[in-house]
């Protein structure tokens, strides 16, 4: 078997075991939270009788182990069940929201990744001179702002001072593609601001690191222009660290943007997850948790693979 295929298979198998472990951890985490689903649903209006009734109808009287394995059995058959709180079909609700999450992540990623790598290259090219300082200064300033502050600032700027965008970004199935783009413009801008610096700095550092090598000097002596040296000779050898940072940021764009979702009332998975954690709605938390973990693990496997493919020494092990 080709070693690369074997490696992929190994990584995927490891990923699946990790997912199983994640599901156990999530389950235990929810069990440890104070209060249960019934109490969380009824809140201030709970009475002893209504609690007992609700626990009965939600099946909370069974032992934790029974509930976990029942859930696992169904999940393995692709049945994520129904939300305890409102009896909505979880797969259906998640399907739509996952789409929205990915839409936002793809829009932000499509702008942020090329932009940050490009800026990183430019910064490396003009290392220590004013373009480098300007790029680093601005991007670091943006990452230093908490997301919600950046979000409120952009709302103020682009909906009230210059009213060209809308503060509430909800998107719905009936909307056209450009309508959706317009709706998510503000959160995309904020997310790009948030992830730009990390990827830019990594690109810059990785390129500068490679620039110390002897072969770069050779390339320069051949008479190539600085940008050509960076593009043709430095970048391919700096790909691995850059990709791993890009992937971490893409994973963040999928799983970590709940604050931005809340500020823009964007109907994606993060807010859905938080609402259900508050109500201790285990099946939903499990399902969303697994999806998030899968995205994270999957993207990391991808980063490993790209790193290996980019490196001839790893690609052709002796």
């Amino acid at each position: 078997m080709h070693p690369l295929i074997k490696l992929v298979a190994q990584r995927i198998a490891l990923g699946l075991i990790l997912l199983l472990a994640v599901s156990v951890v999530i389950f235990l985490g929810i069990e440890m939270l104070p209060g249960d689903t019934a109490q969380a649903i009824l809140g201030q209006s709970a009475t002893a009788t209504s609690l007992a009734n609700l626990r009965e109808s939600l099946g909370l009287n069974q032992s934790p182990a029974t509930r976990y394995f029942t859930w696992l059995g169904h999940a393995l058959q692709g049945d994520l069940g129904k939300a305890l709180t409102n009896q909505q079909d979880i797969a259906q609700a998640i399907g739509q929201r996952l789409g929205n999450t990915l839409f936002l992540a793809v829009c932000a990623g499509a702008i942020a990744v090329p932009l940050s790598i490009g800026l990183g290259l430019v910064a490396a090219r003009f290392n220590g001179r004013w373009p480098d300082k300007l790029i680093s200064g601005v991007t670091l300033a943006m990452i230093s702002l908490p997301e919600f502050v950046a979000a409120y600032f952009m709302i103020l700027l682009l909906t009230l001072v210059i009213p060209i965008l809308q503060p509430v970004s909800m998107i719905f199935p009936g909307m056209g593609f450009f309508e959706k783009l317009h709706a998510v413009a503000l959160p995309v801008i904020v997310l790009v601001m948030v992830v730009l610096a990390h990827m830019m700095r990594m690109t810059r550092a990785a390129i500068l690191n490679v620039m110390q090598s002897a072969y770069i000097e050779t390339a320069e002596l051949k008479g190539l222009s600085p940008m050509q040296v960076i593009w043709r000779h430095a970048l391919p050898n700096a790909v691995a660290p850059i990709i791993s940072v890009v992937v971490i940021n893409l994973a963040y764009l999928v799983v970590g943007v709940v604050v931005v979702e809340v500020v823009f009332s964007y109907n994606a998975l993060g807010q859905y997850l938080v609402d259900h954690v508050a109500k201790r709605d285990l099946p939903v938390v499990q399902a969303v948790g697994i999806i998030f973990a899968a995205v994270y693990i999957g993207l990391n496997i991808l980063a490993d693979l790209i790193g290996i493919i980019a490196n001839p020494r790893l690609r052709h092990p002796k």
Partner: protein
Amino acid sequence: MSSELNHLLGLASAGKMSRREFVGRAGALGVSTAVAGTMLSTAAFADTPVKGGLLRAGMQGGESTNTLDPALAASDVPFMINSTWGETLVDVELNGTLGLRVAEEVSSNADATQWMFKIRKGVEYHNGATMTAEDVVATLKRHTDDKAQSGAQGIVKGITDMKAEGDMVTLTLAAGNADLPFLMADYHLIIQPGGGVDNPTSGIGSGAYKVVEHEPGVRTAFEKHTNHWDASRGHADQVEILTINDNPARTAAIQAGQIHLMNRIDPKIVDLLKGNTDIAIERAAGPGHYVFIMRCNAAPFDNNDLRMALKMSVNRQEMLEKILGGMGSRGNDFPINAAYPMFDDSISQREYDAATAADFYKKSGHDGSPILLQVAPGAFPGAVEAAQLFQASANAAGIPLQVKLEPDDGYWDNVWNIAPFCASYWGGRPVQDQMYSTAYLSTAEWNDTAFKDAHFDEVMIAARGELDQAKRKGMYSEMATILRDTGGLICPMFNDWVEGRRSEVGGWIPNPAGTLMNGKAMSMCWLNA
């Protein structure tokens, strides 16, 4: 001009009420015939409902865990959504009067143990079926069932017999209750086809709008129910209720015109919005209040002198100004204010008095150990700050009050109704009896102050069946005084509804009974082009 008069004027100028009727009813409000006539002719141009358009509200208080089952509604967004697609037998209008909706006549026997509701003819559901008296009975029966987990179970529990005959619904009670019609206005008791037994979450009702799309915690879209029986409701072609829980985002949305109406404006920013001519701040003094509750059966709060010491050491005026930005009124340690019918406004207002508080504290013989007040940010907006103000004013009187911060998560399970002294809130109820019997009757499940007073209970039961209004008002006054002077409730303030309306929205009538015109804003407002 009074809001009632405004409402009448709106009806009359929209052609929903004859000129003669308007002049007559305006006369009842003390307006002379000539003046009423002039008012009508000017208003006819100014206040005609405009048909069409898409009316949008952005609201706090919705989660993706919500459902359309009216029995389970607990927060503002489900309340609003359900009030837009569904209707109750009656509703609470301005000034706490009873409005007739699905029922067109309400009557009772002499001792208020039997109530008759005549169901309006030709009320059509969104699915085309016609509402019957049987549907009404089936609806009420469903809410008595434990399995329905209805928030209104306590209300329908006292009904021993429900009967549908022709277009009459007869309810028989175990004991007389003069307030029963008001209880039927409860927002859980929306009449559903077949009582909603088969499919409680269908969202099919007889309201002015029918649900087209429903994504819990995000958006509910409605379109006009063209066969709605009441032509004075349902002006916009489409309405939408968006859940925007974040305060600044909701405020930005109304400023940008993305929504037309919003609930819960943060009192701290009201002044900032005042300069904006596009947005009107709508206030209504409702029955909601913020409280600190002492459990009368737990030491040291089992000592009335200590309770009085704490009550005297709250600086209510300061709290009202700092926590509510003045958007409310001072509380008087009983849960009733002018929003209720038969409120006795002659009960004197309790003031901050450090000297008296210190005297009571000394008399209580308390050992001087710290008195813990448990509070979480979610107990009510500004709860932690209010508790700190309380701590400062109590300490100034020599009372060792100490604030203990609790997490929001699990607060209602682990602290409220358990801890001896904590912060909480009440949304209020349409009538006094319901408020008292929910939380101050000895046997009430939500008696969160553990207040037990046999005489208080007796007066409450007697008042319930008393049809003589003057006598009843006297009884409520007595109960208020008992609670004020011996109860475990510290009620520093009543919070107003503070809501935003864009200037192009017409038809707004403040209604203190609930948020956004008691849930009727979508059905009764319109968009001026």
